């Protein structure tokens, strides 16, 4: 029974002061990096939140939350009225078992009409659990906000767009960050409030460690340019030999198809697609990428798509703005050299 106790909504007085208002208000979950910066996907979540037309309360958690306050205050986001800070090591690493009681309590006890987070690995892990605790069906991976209760989301690997109406009293939404620009730098007049107390979870779960890809490159999810490799690159050596210099030449992030990841050409976290990252850069260059449905789901909203492939029948050519048929080993070094001069 002790497990249930973690979710019992004993009133914590500090919560009740926030989020009232007859036009609704939005609670936005904000992720911060270890060095206290708001993540690009959360900047998009804040921007999406402002499209709802409500006052926004940003919730930031963890040991580094106070340092993220500064980067939140430097955002051009006039609707951001309150920044709630739950500085507590229990929230580091964003374990949903620990975060859900906090979020569910805020949502249940306050006047928030909307709870928004980015559909990042953290958001996807957390939001449904909060939904279950509040008996709310979330709307996942929203790409368009039509009004306060009407949203568009992709299904079937992005091959179908559903417009859904949500008449639940409170709405839980995860947003696809590539569909909303990041909140711009500027200033706002948000006040900062601490959440001094919360009910800890009794669930026995522990964060043991992480193995994250160290890279100086732009982050894949928010990069303006992406060079992506597929099975056509044959092996890890060719992948690195061809992709890395081209990505350097145009200051691009590196991405990959599932085939390339499975074959060990690069790290899993670089996978673009239905089950990997969804990106929408200004320029996507696919090298040896055939264009399977599952990969296209992750990149077909890119502004300009370039495909270089030796197979003229590859499905990616149906999507590519500019396609070139030929041998990657000849074309890519030449392209790299010519882009370096641009």
């Amino acid at each position, binding site marked *: 029974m002790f497990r249930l106790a973690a979710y019992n909504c004993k009133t914590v007085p500090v919560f009740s002061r926030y989020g009232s208002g007859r036009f609704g208000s939005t609670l936005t979950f904000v992720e911060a990096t270890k060095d206290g910066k708001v993540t690009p996907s959360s900047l998009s979540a804040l921007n999406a939140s402002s499209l709802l037309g409500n006052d926004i309360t940003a919730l930031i958690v963890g040991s580094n939350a106070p340092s993220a306050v500064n980067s939140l205050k430097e955002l051009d986001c006039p609707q951001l009225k309150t920044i709630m800070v739950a500085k507590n090591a229990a929230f580091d690493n964003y374990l949903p078992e620990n975060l859900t009681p906090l979020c569910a309590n805020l949502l249940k006890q306050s006047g928030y009409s909307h709870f928004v987070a980015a559909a990042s690995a953290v958001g996807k892990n957390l939001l*449904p659990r909060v939904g*279950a605790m509040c008996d709310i*069906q979330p709307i996942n991976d929203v790409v368009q906000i039509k009004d306060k209760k*009407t949203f568009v989301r992709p299904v079937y690997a992005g091959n179908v767009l559903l417009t859904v109406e949500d008449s639940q009293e409170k709405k839980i939404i995860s947003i696809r960050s590539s569909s909303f620009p990041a909140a711009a730098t500027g200033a706002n007049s948000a006040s900062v409030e601490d959440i001094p107390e919360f009910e800890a979870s009794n*669930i026995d779960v522990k964060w*043991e460690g992480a193995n994250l890809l160290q890279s100086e490159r732009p982050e894949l999810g928010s990069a303006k340019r992406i060079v992506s490799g597929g099975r056509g690159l044959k092996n890890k050596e060719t992948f690195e030999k061809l992709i890395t210099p081209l990505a350097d030449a145009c200051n691009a992030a590196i991405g990959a198809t599932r085939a390339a990841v499975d074959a060990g050409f690069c790290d899993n976290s670089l996978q673009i697609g239905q089950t990997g990252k969804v990106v929408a850069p200004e320029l996507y260059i696919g090298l040896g990428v055939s264009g399977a*449905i599952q990969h296209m789901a992750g990149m*077909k909203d890119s502004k300009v798509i370039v495909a270089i492939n030796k197979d003229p029948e590859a499905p990616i050519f149906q999507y590519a703005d500019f396609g070139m048929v030929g041998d990657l080993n000849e074309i890519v070094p030449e392209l790299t050299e010519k882009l370096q001069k641009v």
Partner: protein
Amino acid sequence: MSKALRILVPIKRVIDPQIRPRINAAATAVQKTGVQFSVNPFDDIAVEEAVRIREAKKVAVESIHAVSIGPAKSQDSLITALAKGADSATLVDAKDKELEPLAVSKILQKIVEKQKSNLVIMGKQATDDDSNNTGQMLAGLLGWPQATNAAKVEIDEANMRAKVTREVDGGEEVVSAALPLVVTTDLRLNTPRYVTLPNKMKAKKKPMEKTTIEAFTDIDLEPRLKVLRAEEPPARPAGVKVGSVDELVAKLKEVKAI
């Protein structure tokens, strides 16, 4: 507490992920008649993982029970799971009703309780509605820990704990948790085996309990979200093929992509 693993594997029957879905005439949903269906690929990985855990720890696994909630034909998906090594199954016939993850997780909660499961292994998302919700919701309803997007699962049955490597943005992380636990599978967890014909014949003799969603009278199964419209995303204008790198660079400059 006994140190036996009772694994539950929920399975969804979905339109084959290789097929491009067609939208119905009323533009409200995807056409489901005359279309190839298959087991959601992530659920196939979940079945495989359950069977592998048994193969690695024969004594520890007391049962593997598969469950599917959907149209009567979901029975085929369950037979596949039984052929791969599940012991028994439950089919919850939902007729033509579309259930949202919240309703599905509430039904699964009842089945977990009935089967006395202590480890649920399920797909991270279904390739039709792409929600990525049900595992997290089920864990929440049960008050259990969750390990989503699993790339590696290590069970320590002596201490009834699990260590799970999760795929996250930028790499991977490791969490450990006490059982009972909900694990959702990522693509790289394993490579599912094929079903052999003899195993498929044997599977038909394994116990399968059949019930309908009407049996779950205390669960609100009505959709919370109303689909106003289903449509194809706007098509991209046809592109051009270029003959040389110089031409490609010139085109990219022209559209200011570089």
